[in-house]
């Protein structure tokens, strides 16, 4: 073999390998950069009183985001109560009963498209569907908007994890004279259980950070939560309002709120992945 050609090939190999490694490092680096920057900007304003106090009027020192934390928990929690059961049940249908059916194909397709719909459009839809008829912004309308975003994520995740359950497991149960519905409920679902629940958690973490769908549904509020049918503060909304305000103090608080939101999403992600690990070992 020609030695020069070989050297050239090795050089190109090293160059391309290096390039892919740099890009890989860059992708992971973005997360670290965001985390680091937010921590640097937000940590100084983060304190116990910030987490437990209501917002103060402009100009007054102090004030916190307690109402937004409670609001986010309520809005996201209700969104999960609506979105997770619908997504899981639909996923069960697709994976266990919809094989080869046209209907299942279209549902899957629609879910994928819905997953790609901009979240602000989902917010507008919820505005038209819930806010206008009831003539008020409300926590419930925000939850409905978020649940619409959750359904396709939970659905596809549920379907994928159910498909990972080997057919031999279903056959083993059927061969024992167990009716099909019970095979799904008592054997297949528990086998895929951790994966499905992890997916649901990740979907919750994902919508916890959504702002656009809440702008004209939950709307935001500077006071304690006044029930499901009134406007309510959430972390992303408060962050957004503070960030676009002209006040230096609110900017600092926006960074701190961003840090809180980021830590929450990160914690859910890490917890979900740690939880999933043992199940993946035993499912195969």
């Amino acid at each position, binding site marked *: 073999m020609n030695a020069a050609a070989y050297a050239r090939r090795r050089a190109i190999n090293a160059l391309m390998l290096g390039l892919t490694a740099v890009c890989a490092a860059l992708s992971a680096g973005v997360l670290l950069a965001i985390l680091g920057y937010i921590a640097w900007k937000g940590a100084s304003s983060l304190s116990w009183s910030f987490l437990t106090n209501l917002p103060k009027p402009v100009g007054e020192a102090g004030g916190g985001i307690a109402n937004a934390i409670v609001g986010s928990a309520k809005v996201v929690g209700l969104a999960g109560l609506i979105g997770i059961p619908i997504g899981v049940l639909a996923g069960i249908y697709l994976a266990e009963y919809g*094989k*080869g059916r046209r209907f299942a194909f279209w549902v899957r397709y629609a879910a994928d498209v819905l997953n790609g719909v901009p979240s602000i459009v989902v917010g507008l839809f919820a505005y038209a569907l819930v806010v206008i008829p009831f003539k008020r912004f409300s926590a419930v309308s925000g939850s409905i908007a978020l649940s619409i975003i959750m359904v396709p994520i939970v659905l596809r995740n549920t379907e994928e994890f159910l498909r990972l359950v*080997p057919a*031999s*497991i279903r*056959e*083993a*149960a*059927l*061969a*024992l*004279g*167990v*009716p099909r519905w*019970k*095979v799904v409920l*008592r*054997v297949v679902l*528990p*086998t895929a*259980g951790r994966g499905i629940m992890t997916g649901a958690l990740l979907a919750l973490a994902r919508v916890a950070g959504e702002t656009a769908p809440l702008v004209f549904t939950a709307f935001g509020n500077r006071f304690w939560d006044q029930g499901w049918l009134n406007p309510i503060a959430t972390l992303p909304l408060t962050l957004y309002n503070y960030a676009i305000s002209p006040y230096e103090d609110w900017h600092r608080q926006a960074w701190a709120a961003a840090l809180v939101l980021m830590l929450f999403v990160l914690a859910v992600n890490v917890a979900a992945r740690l939880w999933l690990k043992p199940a993946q070992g*035993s*499912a195969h």
Partner: protein
Amino acid sequence: MDTNPVVPPTPAPALAAPLPAPKPGPSAQKEKPVVMSVRGLRAGYGGGASVLKGVSLDVRERTVTAIIGPSGCGKSTLIRCLNRLHEALPGAYCEGDIHLGGRNVLEIDPVLLRREVGMVFQRPNPFPTMSVFENVASGLVLNGESDRAKIAERVETSLRRAALWDEVKDKLAAPGVGLSGGQQQRLCIARALAVEPHILLMDEPCSALDPIATARIEELLVEIKEQLTVVIVTHNMQQAARVSEYTAFMLMGELVEFGETQQIFTKPVDKRTEDYITGRFG
């Protein structure tokens, strides 16, 4: 599945007419009663070619019937028709007559049928979320049995019958998938036995096991057939010769020859059977 094209040295009959019922041989007096009889069984998948082209055979009580034949001959499909698991696949069909205790199997509720006709699969498939105990109990528990004492007793009996009790009695709460391959397969046998079926179907139950684990399962079969009827599909002709009283040889969806194992292996009537068991093809 690998489907080696098998060319029989003698031309097959032009039309696959259902075989006549096996004639009672000279030993008819000692033959045990027929518990399941299959007549003109056809099966396949919608659109595709048929896999079974009219199979007839009788399964006798408390005996082991082996089904042998090359890959793709339809032997797995045949036993999967006997508990109607074949029909659980999308587009699959199965027609003909399978009689079990005076009823046509193809007309009764498959769920109830499967409690009488159990099955053990090619690869051990314990339920991954369940312990050893729960695996064996699953058939009872999932079918609504709630008497704990009865369940515990049945689990122990079944594990003993599957020759697994001594190995697992101290780790009943451990996950079933933590056992060795051979133990997992015996666990699956215990799970099937716990439902107390009359007939146990085994679809190449040793093909994923080493020779020692295989020998244990074969020993176990000898004990099991004291109490129930076994139909076993096997790739391994020595295994068929060792464990069975009756052997059916299948080729390309047809049952070529069916008779007492001794006769099939020593004086096969059909040239194709002889070629197969002497290793000239397949």
